[in-house]
């Protein structure tokens, strides 16, 4: 296989659709290397669950709220698994970045990229916001087009080189700076049990014992305190916009409205089987309940945004709902933390 043309005839990558981009990419890349792993599992051992309300970072002029770990966290965790090594590079120069991508593709290596959604023409128009932490896998090139396995799409897609380079060098918050990565080495088997414990432990630490008041369970409560004051502080219209933004962040593609809580529950169910720990199964149910409460909040928020508020819908009622989420998550994380401590 010398030339790119020859290579492009047989790009082989098992594309599996997933609910979230980063965990999907991680699972797909590992599966490609022969380590069969589900998306939820990758999300869990990558410690993907999180909460952060960071009003000093702005997206389209609205505060950053995240229900999952910062972009790249899952991949970093996966890369730090003993036996796994991942090559990762950011670029300044566009041509260099594309040349290095082509070089890897020539060697039949599927390459993960961080991109900005706004510049990807195959995305539906309604989702093309300036959001820069989208992950995808490029696994081949045909002529001027790259073959892309975008985990949130049902089928592999194609993208012109010119558009891809724009997406790789999107500017603004979380700018990808051409970031590319691929796995260079994987162990023969994953030590699932240890990884599960490690993953759970790291999430508990973030959610419960962060000294920073804007993240974890404290962050959820902080958001609820702020949210009550939005109508007075910002005026009705701006408050509704902020509210809509919170809900939009909660429902990134495929989370079903639960801000990744459902995906984490799926991970806990899977882990319960591997670890033979019924406790994890119970925790999964608690997370389902927490996700449902988040949904309840979002549904109320949507009614308010739409001006169809029911009599008992109000900002204080929503804040109360978020506080309930915080309380539920605090309990279940405390349980998980205990469990992880016992097993490590």
């Amino acid at each position, binding site marked *: 296989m010398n030339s790119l043309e020859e290579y492009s005839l047989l790009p082989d990558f098992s594309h599996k659709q997933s609910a979230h981009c980063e965990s999907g990419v991680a699972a797909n890349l590992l599966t490609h290397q022969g380590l069969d792993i589900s998306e*939820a599992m990758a999300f869990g051992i990558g410690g993907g669950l999180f909460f952060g309300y960071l009003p000093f970072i702005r997206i389209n002029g609205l505060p950053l709220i995240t229900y999952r770990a910062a972009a790249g966290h899952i991949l970093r965790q996966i890369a730090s698994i003993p036996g796994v090594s991942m090559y990762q590079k950011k670029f300044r120069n566009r041509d260099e970045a594309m040349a290095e991508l082509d070089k890897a593709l020539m060697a039949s290596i599927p390459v993960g990229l961080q991109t900005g959604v706004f510049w990807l023409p195959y995305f*539906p128009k309604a989702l093309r916001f300036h959001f820069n932490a989208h992950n995808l896998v490029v696994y081949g090139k045909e002529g001027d087009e790259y073959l892309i396995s975008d985990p949130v*799409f049902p089928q592999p897609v194609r993208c012109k080189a010119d558009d891809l380079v724009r997406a790789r060098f999107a500017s603004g918050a979380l700018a990808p700076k051409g970031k590319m990565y691929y796995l260079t080495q994987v162990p023969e088997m994953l030590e699932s049990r240890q990884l599960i414990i490690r993953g759970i432990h790291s999430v508990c630490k973030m959610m419960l014992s962060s000294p920073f008041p804007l993240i974890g369970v404290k962050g959820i409560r902080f958001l609820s305190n702020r949210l009550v004051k939005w109508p007075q502080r910002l005026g009705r219209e701006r408050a509704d916009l902020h509210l*809509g933004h919170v809900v*939009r962040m909660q429902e990134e593609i495929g989370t*079903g409205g639960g801000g990744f809580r459902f995906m984490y529950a799926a991970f806990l169910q899977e882990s319960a089987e591997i670890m033979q720990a019924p406790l994890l199964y119970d925790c999964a149910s608690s997370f389902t309940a927490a996700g*449902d409460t988040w949904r309840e909040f*979002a549904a109320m928020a*949507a009614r308010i*945004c739409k001006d169809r508020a029911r009599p008992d819908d109000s900002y204080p009622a929503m804040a109360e709902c978020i506080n309930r989420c915080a309380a539920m998550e605090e309990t279940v994380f405390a349980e998980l933390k205990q469990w992880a401590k016992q097993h490590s």
Partner: protein
Amino acid sequence: MENPEYSSGEGITAGLKIVSYAVNNKGEYELRPDFVWQPVNVVNHQAWLEIDKKITQSRKKVAAGRVSCLHYYMTANQMDTGLLAQYTGQPRWKVFLHLVPLIFNRLSANTLKKYAELYKIAPDDLIKGRLLPPLYNHE
């Protein structure tokens, strides 16, 4: 967990079939195709209404000669001066000045080319002040 009703796929994903985690009747999680959760359509719609509102305002301002057509392209592509400055590698105050019609009309061909390339339009469109649809609406 109550599973929300299936919708026709209209709304946020505009026909894209996504998968989500949901419990089946045995209480186990599985990836389910094509379920669209209503509130997200509402808030997504809200975000687009806001963008459309800004675009309409910008069109009016351009028509009234209060800002240059660059303001329209910036707004239509969901950017602000800061983001546009980053994309074109200029300081923010320069971009800010370029929104003033008088200054915009005297821009060098090079600077115009930068903007035109970013928005995938011809420099001539900028000079003539044609308001073409934003990038994500080209097709």
